């Protein structure tokens, strides 16, 4: 190994190579965070996984994002600094508490991370969660690399307490899953949370008190917007040339790469916007181009200020940008000259077969989907690895909407088909997804007298996002043992009798087939648990044991 001596870079610098997600965890730890909650979801998952390794911080995988935020709210109101993490669509689940905690405010700093996924590398939609900042009347910061991810997280805690409001921190896949060098510091001595003290008019949102708080919310947003002009997170980078760019996040890096000399207004706080700073910048250049991925969030707002800008006429509302995709449309429009050396990419002269992701060899879900394919049943599906059952060779999934939707959608099909319903629909859902929001759907089916046939594919883990435990796994994020939810008792609680509840071995094709065929013919609500550990988890456990 290297002999570390004086002058060795490794020894003298507190510099680490961190992913954006690790940097957010680091920033939160340095800020003295007490509590971290969340639900796994790409690209957010590694934030909490990194935070759990700091012994001073309590972390949990909550049952879903709504609960994660509610636990976070309680922790904040008891005076703890709190980080809540989720992917973009997770914020939809947490939206209910989100909009009202905006009224209540915080005690300990509360930072909510929304990790967005432009281009949908691993998501069912590519919603732009900057819109939540406006809709929930909450400020939002957006870092542009790992260093800023660490810095902005620290600052977000301070600003959250200063303005008495939760802060949203927006990341995207290219920030969360990119690594770069980060200068780090030690943890501030945070002291113990002060504890919860009653403040009924501020914490109890009945209409009379909420009306008062809404006034405070709007005043607060105005104050933050005024201060945004002076906020160091928003900065003008001087340059030359007639075109000035307004941008944020990873797109800032693309703009710097594509136009090294251009003036740039880099927004670190993406909501509310610094109106005076934008005016100053716009006056200093001939043309303002807004470079943003997905929605026309900055552009529409800046135009509403009466400042002429261009943007979406060049850049798509879909997918990710890149240095090339930031530059090419401006060349095509004649705003900047083409550079030489722009050789067209070579196309391969042979056909390269696509390599789509697929269920792993030996995956316990293979049996069920093979069978459902054979039986030709209508399959309402859900979110997880097993959504790959929709692809060939199985092609055994007919819908996939959101977490838990399989069970509700199956009921709707049954209701609408009415007398024509032939018990040929089955809802298929994974264990973690079932705990997340499938159980409420099951209760709905029981309550409303549906005949739904629900299959839970229990592979003992939340596999898609990298093996996180869940309420059925018997362990917590820390690895310590935990209560495991009992399917049998759950079935009993929703009135499913013994004949209509079965647990079978995922690896026994005969068992699975017999259970599916028999249960499908029965009336009333039915629950089948197909149990078989994830092959990747098994391999991992074997490795750890040896």
């Amino acid at each position, binding site marked *: *190994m*290297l*002999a*570390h*001596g*004086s*002058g*060795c*870079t*490794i020894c003298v610098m507190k*510099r680490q*190579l961190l992913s954006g997600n690790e940097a957010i965890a680091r920033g939160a730890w340095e800020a003295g965070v007490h509590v971290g909650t969340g639900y796994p979801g*790409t*690209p957010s998952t590694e934030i909490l996984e990194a935070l759990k390794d700091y012994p001073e911080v309590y972390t949990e995988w909550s049952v879903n994002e709504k609960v994660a935020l509610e636990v976070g709210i309680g922790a904040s109101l008891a005076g703890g600094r709190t980080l809540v993490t989720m992917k973009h669509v997770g914020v939809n689940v947490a939206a209910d508490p989100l909009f009202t905690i905006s009224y209540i405010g915080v005690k300990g700093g509360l930072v909510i991370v929304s990790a967005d996924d432009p281009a949908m*590398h*691993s998501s069912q939609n590519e919603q732009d969660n900057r819109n939540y900042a406006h809709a929930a009347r909450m400020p939002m910061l957006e870092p542009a*690399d790992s260093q800023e991810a660490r810095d902005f997280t620290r600052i977000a805690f301070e600003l959250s307490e200063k303005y008495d409001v939760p802060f949203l921190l927006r990341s995207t*896949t*290219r920030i969360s*899953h*990119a*690594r*770069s*060098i980060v200068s780090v510091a030690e943890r501030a001595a945070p002291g113990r949370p002060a504890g919860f003290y009653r403040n009924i008019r501020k914490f109890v949102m009945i209409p009379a008190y909420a009306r008062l708080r809404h006034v405070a919310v709007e005043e607060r947003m105005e104050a933050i917007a005024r201060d945004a002009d002076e906020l160091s997170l928003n900065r003008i980078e001087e340059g030359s040339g007639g075109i000035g760019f307004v941008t944020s996040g*990873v797109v800032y*890096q*693309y703009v*710097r*790469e*594509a136009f*090294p000399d251009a003036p740039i207004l880099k927004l670190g706080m993406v909501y509310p916007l610094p109106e005076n700073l934008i005016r100053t910048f716009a006056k200093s250049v001939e043309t303002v181009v807004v470079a943003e991925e997905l929605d026309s969030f900055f552009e529409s707002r800046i135009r509403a200020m009466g400042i002429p800008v261009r943007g979406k006429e060049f850049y798509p509302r879909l997918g990710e940008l*890149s*240095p*090339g995709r930031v530059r090419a449309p401006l060349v095509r429009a004649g705003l900047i000259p083409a550079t030489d050396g*722009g*050789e067209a*990419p*070579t*196309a*391969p*002269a*042979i*056909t*390269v*077969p*696509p*390599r*789509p*992701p*697929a*269920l*792993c060899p030996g995956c316990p879900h293979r049996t069920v989907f093979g069978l459902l394919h054979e039986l030709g049943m209508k399959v309402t599906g859900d979110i997880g*690895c097993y959504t*790959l059952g929709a692809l*060939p*060779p199985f092609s055994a999934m007919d819908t996939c909407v959101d977490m838990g939707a399989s069970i509700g959608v199956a009921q709707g099909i049954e209701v609408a088909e009415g007398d024509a319903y032939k018990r040929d629909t089955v809802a298929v859902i994974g264990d973690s997804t079932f705990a997340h929001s499938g159980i409420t759907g099951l209760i709905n089916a029981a309550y409303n007298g549906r005949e739904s046939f629900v299959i839970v594919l229990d592979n003992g883990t939340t596999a*898609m*996002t*990298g093996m996180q435990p869940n309420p059925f796994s018997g362990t917590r994020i820390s690895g310590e043992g935990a209560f495991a939810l009992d399917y049998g008792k759950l079935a009993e609680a929703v009135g499913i009798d013994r004949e209509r509840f079965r647990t079978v071995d995922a690896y026994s094709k005969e068992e699975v087939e017999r259970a599916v065929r028999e249960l499908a013919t029965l009336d009333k609500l039915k629950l089948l648990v197909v149990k078989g550990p994830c092959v990747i988890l098994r391999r991992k456990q074997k490795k750890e044991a040896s």
Partner: protein
Amino acid sequence: MTVSNILMVGVGGQGIILASNIFTAATMYAGFDTKKSEIHGMSQRGGSVFSHIRYGQEVFSPVIPEGGAHFVFSLELMEPLRWLDFVNRETVLVSSDKRINPANVDTYPDGVAAELKRIFSTIQIVDVKKLQSKIASATFLNVALLGVLSGFLDLPLPAWETAIGETVPRGTFDKNWSAFTHGRTLSDGATEKRSDTGVIGDKGRAPDRG
């Protein structure tokens, strides 16, 4: 201002992420600014996996600009053909000759190696069967191939050593290091004049360190 761009590709489960973590750490220990970008999630289930690494004096985009790859490093033979948007006439290819059929495809396409030779002016395709017989096990092939790539680059050996030491699982350093150094001896790059690769030039000369 020169930034070196390395595109690392392969198939889920082959160890691209580990190899790219080692590489990125090595560039940091060699004194460079460095960034890496990759996609997790779906791509791990036997799909195509890629990782962008960029290092130099100052790096902005974590993603390699189109046509900007100096090197493509692949753990599977046909994978480089998926990423030609990032390739230019000077791009160097270091690839394993390992052939993995995509799920539901029974025959490997013909003429992949010839096509790679047509597109890449400098190319080293490594016979992995031969390589595997010289190292502890197939587990270390990714690191051995990284050794082959390292021969084309001006990163100092101690930076690689530190990077491998801190990245690989505990207790596997010796086997990984020996795989890496063996790969390095096989590298065509080692026999070329380093400046001929045109990638790093004199800025790449790493600072001395103890």
